[in-house]
């Protein structure tokens, strides 16, 4: 193909976004993706903090159980977990989840494991003498946690959990496999709808989806970078 033909194909392909409500529809699809990600992020930060505290308990059984959970969630690809929740649960237990619920469930379970590990690492990075100094000046356990441990762990934790948030948003793209109508699915619908009028429109649609994901995640990456720099100062 000549380069002028390529340019022509690309520029005509972008015209699909000026027809009807195509661009608005794509944005609505992005909103579905983002809301699934947001719900799972909030839930996994909540449960992850609890899980992280549980992992610091010095009990053999608790330690082994949480280790098994963590390793399982880490080893299984998120797509396999999605399939297990969406197809496996329905088939073997008769629990029929919608695509959205299944994906929120899976991302929360996975996010809890990852977040829990971050929380555990941050909690254990507080040196022992900090606790002991707190005790020496007569603070209660709760005061030690609130005034000594929490501020130090939060400062470590926030940039790291920002990275986890970007990873979770990126992973949300997988929900198209379990039949959720989100940004990729709507993009495919637009491509199919314009198959005859604008046959090359797939390049524009996929490029726009690519950059939509990029900008959403980039915001969080920048935030993580800024926080990390501030923490080092």
């Amino acid at each position: 193909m000549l380069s002028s033909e390529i340019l022509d194909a690309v520029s005509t392909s972008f015209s699909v976004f000026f027809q009807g409500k195509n661009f608005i529809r794509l944005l609505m699809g992005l909103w579905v993706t983002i809301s699934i990600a947001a719900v799972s992020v909030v839930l996994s930060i909540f449960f992850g903090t609890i899980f992280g505290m549980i992992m610091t308990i010095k009990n053999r059984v608790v330690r082994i159980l949480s280790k098994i959970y963590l390793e399982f969630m880490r080893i299984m690809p998120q797509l396999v977990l999605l399939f297990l929740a969406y197809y496996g649960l329905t088939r073997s237990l008769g629990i029929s989840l919608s695509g959205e619920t299944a994906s929120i469930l899976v991302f929360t379970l996975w996010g809890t494991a990852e977040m829990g590990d971050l929380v555990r690492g941050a909690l254990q990075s507080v040196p022992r003498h900090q606790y002991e100094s707190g005790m020496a000046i007569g603070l209660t356990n709760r005061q030690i946690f609130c005034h000594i441990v929490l501020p130090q762990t939060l400062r470590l934790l926030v940039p790291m959990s920002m990275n986890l948030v970007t990873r979770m948003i990126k992973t949300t793209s997988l929900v198209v496999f379990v039949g959720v109508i989100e940004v990729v699915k709507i993009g495919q619908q637009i491509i199919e709808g314009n198959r005859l009028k604008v046959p090359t429109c797939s390049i524009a649609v996929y490029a726009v989806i690519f950059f939509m994901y990029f900008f959403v995640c980039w915001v969080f990456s920048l935030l993580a970078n800024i926080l990390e720099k501030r923490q080092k100062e």
Partner: protein
Amino acid sequence: MDFTFIKQVIPLYTEAAWLTMHIALIGILLSLIVGLICALILYYRIPVLRTITSCYIELSRNTPLLIQLFFLYFALPNVGIKLSGVQCCIIGLTFLGGSYMEETFRSALDTVGKVQIESGQCIGLTRAQIMRYIVLPQAVSVSIPGFCANVMFLIKETSVFSIVAVADLMYVAKDLIGLYYKTDEALLLLALSYFILLLPVSMLASYAERRLRYAQFGNT
């Protein structure tokens, strides 16, 4: 559970696992090379290439592999670039993995102290010699745990390959569910195969991390 069925379809899974590992291996090797080159470019602050490299890293770190594959497989044929599914997967995996490897290498390069480099200069080594004999050996050993984590991440990411019609594990499982309605068996085998592929890598990673901590801080 239908065990005769499981016995029948195991060869399908092993074949798919080999294909996945094959693509993953090529992708990981290529992304190692890309990552090392990018890390060196950023380390030496080469003017123009540095900007291009950081743009590439931001793009690849902030987009999902699935969307990258969609773009490569469905969009590029419109401008005359036709790639097969396997080629798309290798390119996509390299594009994604390159930036992750770069990040690991660069942070490892930063851990090598300035004193080391200055000592090298004092005894009259050239820049290439300092890189070859002083910085790289130390940086590589520091980067091994990160490298293992990346390998695991990339193998996990291969699960989306079925979208571009590559017959990987996911594809076989979906096929069996669709053809025979053997959901339980297909999913069990799917989960098991990923376990068999990834458990050794995970164990190797934690072993490497322990060894490294031992080498750095002694007995902890």
